[in-house]
């Protein structure tokens, strides 16, 4: 089988999410990559070095600059004439593009796979990860999104893919990119952080969130996450949200501070290796999944913990 993997990038470098998707694709067959964007020569060079990749298709055109699904989907559909499976990481870009491609190809997408059981059979979470379904597809061509935490990342070096330019399919003329606000952060990205400290509603304000959570995260070299309640209340930006409808993370250590442990939150972090929870309610559901639970007032415990580390 020939697979085509969507390379997630920021215009200059390949994002980590790509690397686990390559692993999933390699279980199906030969791995080709698609680098779409504008001025993405450096990304293509880096992509060609990813371990185990064959061809790197590069679509360099203004129409692809912001990965608008309306412009990218026809490009992918055309490349799929000579590929059998299209795989994207389950990032917001991947989730935006893949179903549109599936519709153009008249196939049913398989979302968020956790494993490749065979050429046509996969496992995937349903009901916020409270159940795992094994699904088999009848479609000849496959469109798949891949949960990054479920697959190892391939090495970024060692490959020798051949770069091949592909013709543009042009601008579909139905959508225009206006702008974006992407927060620059020194911290490790949530989906690849080894340690994550997350804060919940109990933090009470944006100021307290930052004065308590940030120093603890700094001490641990951790990424910072949040519950939906904390994000909704404006204590933390939206891209911090961990959960069914936020980011799915599985770090070595996840520290939940003042988070109750609703199933929608657990859905995003219960595959972490070690879970630490700090909560004043000893019956909080978060303790049912925590390896180490500390019961008490976070406003006292967190500064003490930060200091003693």
């Amino acid at each position, binding site marked *: 089988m020939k697979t085509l993997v969507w390379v997630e990038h920021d215009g200059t470098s390949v994002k980590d999410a790509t690397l686990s998707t390559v692993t999933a694709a390699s279980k199906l067959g030969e791995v080709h990559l698609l680098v779409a964007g504008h001025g993405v020569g450096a990304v293509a060079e880096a992509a060609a070095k990813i371990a185990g990749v064959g061809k790197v298709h590069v679509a360099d055109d203004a129409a692809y600059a912001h990965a608008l*699904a*309306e412009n990218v*989907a026809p490009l992918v559909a055309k490349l799929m004439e000579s590929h059998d499976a299209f795989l994207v990481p389950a*990032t*917001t*870009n991947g*989730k935006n593009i*893949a*179903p*549109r491609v599936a*519709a153009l190809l008249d*196939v*049913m*997408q398989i*979302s968020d796979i956790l494993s490749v059981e065979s050429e046509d059979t996969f496992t995937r979470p*349903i*009901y*916020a990860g*409270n*159940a795992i*379904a*094994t*699904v*088999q*597809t*009848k*479609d000849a061509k496959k469109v798949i999104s891949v949960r990054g935490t479920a697959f190892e990342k391939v090495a970024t070096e060692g490959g020798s893919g051949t770069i091949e330019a592909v013709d543009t399919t042009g601008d579909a003329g*139905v*959508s225009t*990119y*206006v*702008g*974006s*606000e*992407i*927060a620059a952060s020194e911290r490790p990205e949530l989906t690849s952080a080894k*340690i994550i400290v997350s804060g919940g509603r109990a933090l009470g304000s944006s100021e307290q969130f930052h004065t308590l959570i940030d120093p603890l995260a700094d001490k*641990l070299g951790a990424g910072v996450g949040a519950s*939906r309640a904390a994000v*909704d209340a404006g204590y933390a*930006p*939206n*891209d911090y949200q961990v959960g069914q*409808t936020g980011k799915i993370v599985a770090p*070595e*250590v996840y520290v939940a501070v003042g988070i109750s442990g609703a199933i*929608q939150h657990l859905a995003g972090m219960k595959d972490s290796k*070690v*879970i*630490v929870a700090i909560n004043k309610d000893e019956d909080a559901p978060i303790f049912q999944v*925590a*390896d*180490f*639970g*500390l*019961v008490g007032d976070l406003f006292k415990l967190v500064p*003490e*913990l930060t200091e*003693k*580390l």
Partner: protein
Amino acid sequence: MRVLVPVKRVLDYNVKPRVKADGSGVDLANVKMSMNPFDEIAVEEAIRLKDKGVTEIVVVSIGEQKAQETLRTALAMGADRAILIVTEDKVEPLGVAKLLAKIVEEEKPDLVILGKQAIDDDNNQTGQMLAGLLGVGQATFASKVELGADSVTVTREVDGGSETETLKLPAIITVDLRLNEPRYASLPNIMKAKSKPLAQKTAADYGVDVSPRLTTLKVVEPAKRSAGIKVADVDELVAKLKSMGVAK
């Protein structure tokens, strides 16, 4: 301007899903079912756009007879009329998108607002598929919607922050959690909703083949995490973290 809002009936988000012992799926017998939470947000957004030039809101659901209740809820919130495409079989996002495309041909809405994902199968596909079938613009994960005369500008929640796009109408929007807070229907509105029009159709009426492409071989519970221990104080936690090599 007309807005179409597809709504799905799903297991209520407060109910803990239970996997059936025979591995055939999640037990939906005698449990509370509700409108998919994202779809409530979609309905709410459509209603709020009534001040901005929207004149009619049509809600549609594909599902069993009981999905009527879900449609009535949307009508009670403020939608004007409803269409139920009755099917006893499960219809996948591709099939749903194909049926919706037919309804769009008939109803010619300027906007279709969907939830970003249905919280049962967590697919996150239907809106994007519909946009692909229709060849129109799509804005997923919307956290802000500004409707103009022939375009709509949408702010989207993306990895790392937010992004804004302008789409030509007609267009497809899928909504994220922070777009708005859906209203509760008042009692008088619930009463009024009972007499609002609700048309019943079948997939066959639209001549669309919605037979599934995926077969679910089995459904199991995920590996359970066993609860760990409670530590007595911060010192004990620090010691644990140190022994794991997390802290020095």
